[in-house]
């Protein structure tokens, strides 16, 4: 079946990792696994600036941590400075968990001390920025900062959004809202270098 989604989903950078558990259990040859933005939006149930931000921060942070090597799934600790019940934090945490394999408590608990995926997502940590990523093999750490000030929201988007939510929007207004919403997401992708800063600690 073919899903219909904004065409820019197809041209976004993908994230390739090595997953030792996949290799061990014969799932992927050499454990190499690749994620794309479409998969993350399917799981999140939507594409929005938070999901995009989490995706791009993970992409950029892993690049900074691993350079030309493949990032290792399950060997990355991901931290947030808010609680997991915070709305934006949990949406971002779910997206980064999907890519890195890190989970708080719901995940694979390991085989004889290997391959565990739990206790690798941390909340209420103290640091400045949005997401902190740490390689557990060498402790190298980076903080990702996400700032959307340079990508303003079209004022019409908010007006249309409340109309749709209140059930007062016409079909064309609902479609216009969808287009404006995804256009902003696309713009964020196109300005990834401006909206995301990676600070190496």
């Amino acid at each position, binding site marked *: 079946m073919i899903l219909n989604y904004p065409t820019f989903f197809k041209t976004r950078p993908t994230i390739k990792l090595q997953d030792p558990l996949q290799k061990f259990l014969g799932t992927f040859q050499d454990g190499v696994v690749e994620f794309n933005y479409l998969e993350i939006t399917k799981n999140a*149930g939507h594409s929005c600036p938070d999901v995009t931000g989490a995706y791009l921060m993970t992409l950029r942070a892993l690049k900074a941590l691993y350079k030309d090597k493949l990032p290792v799934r399950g060997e990355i600790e991901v931290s947030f400075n808010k609680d997991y019940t915070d709305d934006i934090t949990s949406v971002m945490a779910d997206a980064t968990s999907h890519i890195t394999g890190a989970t708080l408590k719901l995940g694979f608990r390991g085989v004889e001390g290997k391959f565990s995926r739990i206790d690798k997502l941390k909340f209420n940590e103290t640091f400045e920025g949005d997401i902190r990523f740490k390689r557990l093999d060498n402790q190298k750490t980076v903080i990702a900062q996400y700032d959307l000030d340079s990508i303003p929201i079209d004022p019409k988007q908010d007006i249309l959004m409340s109309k749709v939510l209140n059930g007062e929007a016409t079909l064309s207004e609902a479609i216009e809202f969808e287009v404006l919403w995804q256009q902003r997401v696309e713009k964020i992708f196109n300005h990834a270098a401006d909206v995301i800063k990676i600070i190496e600690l």
Partner: protein
Amino acid sequence: MNYPKFFETAPTIRLQDPLSDFLGTFEDGIVEFNYLDIVKSAGHSCPTVSGAYLCTIKALKALYQDETPVRGDIYVRFKSDPLEGVAGVIANVVTQITGATQDSGFKGLNGKFARNNLMEFNADIQTQMEFKRLDTGKSVTVNYDPSSIGGNPKMQELMGKLMQGVASSEEKKEFGELWQSRVEAIFNNIDKVITVS
């Protein structure tokens, strides 16, 4: 990515996600998941992951018949504690398909589209899982028992070697193949291993 061939013939599941529709992500909110999607996220393919995948598909089929299941409108209860054994692995698979979370996930807009508070653990139920449609209140219970699908006895011995780091590369490969052939056998015996009532 190179993966076992049976992944491609495993059943897929299509749902309607009103949040995806609202935010212009998928046309009409139609979204489809396949076993590969689930495996990538879980980090592996095993009897637990395939069981959770198939239980969800069977339960939603029973709940929705010919209708398209609605993501975010399904409440899932587990008998087990979330920190027990493979409960977390199972829950993550169910979350990925249904959107339901306990306290993570999207919290909604104007009371719509919330994905949290849709999952419960330590539930007072007789079966392993229960799926409920929030629109109609209809629910089904699900049990999964793959014990009739025996694994090759060699698997245990090879796994021990792998864990001790003494397996040759041929033995590692053989273990992976035996492991996945059991998963494939589970897919080939869906009605034998899963009970929906």
